[in-house]
């Protein structure tokens, strides 16, 4: 086993443990903090895939924006800072069995695929050139349309979020 493999296994173990804590811890604020650790583990695995750009984007967008937004929502939607009672549904073992089955099925199907043990070839020089990616995003013959659609989606989400969350009591009543 190389150092890289050991490092990957450690990162994967930490990430999966943090993810399990996200879905199982009783205190919702602790779940939000565990989520940050899980997202950071994902960012490290992006870096291991030699896509440093997305590792940085993951830290900036997910940890810097989405996780903070979730923490804000946790703090805004509670009267007291203690979560009483169970945080899982009564029949929580049914989804547990379902996802265990799904995981076994996924790994089973993947292991029959011929490309499952593919080793990475050396990364071509062109693949780490960020300016090429930027040009591809605005090139009409490449990915200009998905890029614009994403922009419109963000704008729509922005307007929709403000509209949904705004306090319109003065207008309605």
């Amino acid at each position, binding site marked *: 086993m190389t150092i*890289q*493999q050991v490092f*990957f296994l450690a990162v994967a173990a930490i*990430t*999966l443990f943090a*993810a399990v804590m*996200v*879905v199982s811890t009783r205190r*919702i604020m602790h*779940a*939000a903090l565990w*989520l940050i650790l899980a997202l950071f583990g994902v960012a490290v*695995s*992006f870096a291991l895939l030699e*896509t440093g*750009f*997305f590792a940085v*984007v993951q830290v900036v967008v*997910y940890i810097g924006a*989405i996780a903070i*937004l*979730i923490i*804000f*929502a946790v703090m805004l*939607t509670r*009267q007291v800072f203690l979560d009483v009672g169970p*945080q*899982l*549904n009564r029949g929580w073992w049914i*989804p547990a069995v*379902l*996802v*265990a089955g799904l*995981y076994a099925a*996924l790994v089973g199907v*993947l292991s029959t695929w011929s*490309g*499952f043990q*593919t*080793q*990475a*070839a050396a*990364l*071509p020089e*062109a693949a780490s050139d960020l300016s090429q*990616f930027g040009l*591809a*995003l605005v090139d009409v013959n*490449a990915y200009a349309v998905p*890029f614009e*659609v*994403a922009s419109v989606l*963000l704008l*729509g*989400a922005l307007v*929709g979020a*403000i509209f*949904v*969350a705004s*306090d319109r009591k003065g207008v309605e009543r």
Partner: protein
Amino acid sequence: MIPLSWYLIFAAALFCIGLFGVMARKNAVAILMGVELMLNAVNINLLAFWRYLYAPDFAGWTFVAIVLVAAAAETAVGLALIISVYRRRSTVVVDDLSLMKG
């Protein structure tokens, strides 16, 4: 080097944990956290396939960027909905949000 299978197994486990959170948690914010875990698992898969099979082509990167944008939009709108619901009903426990139950 790390084989592709390790990334796929890791992402599948992360996706399943997120799915469990979506199905089993009571708090709407915790359900959104489960969705975030699932989206991250998808991104690991996309980047792993890009790295191992389609390396110099930027299609995979574009896909990941779109998923990131969709995740940000989903979180913003979802949390706005949760805050709106909390303002009207004073709860974010999805069991209590049975207004549309027949």
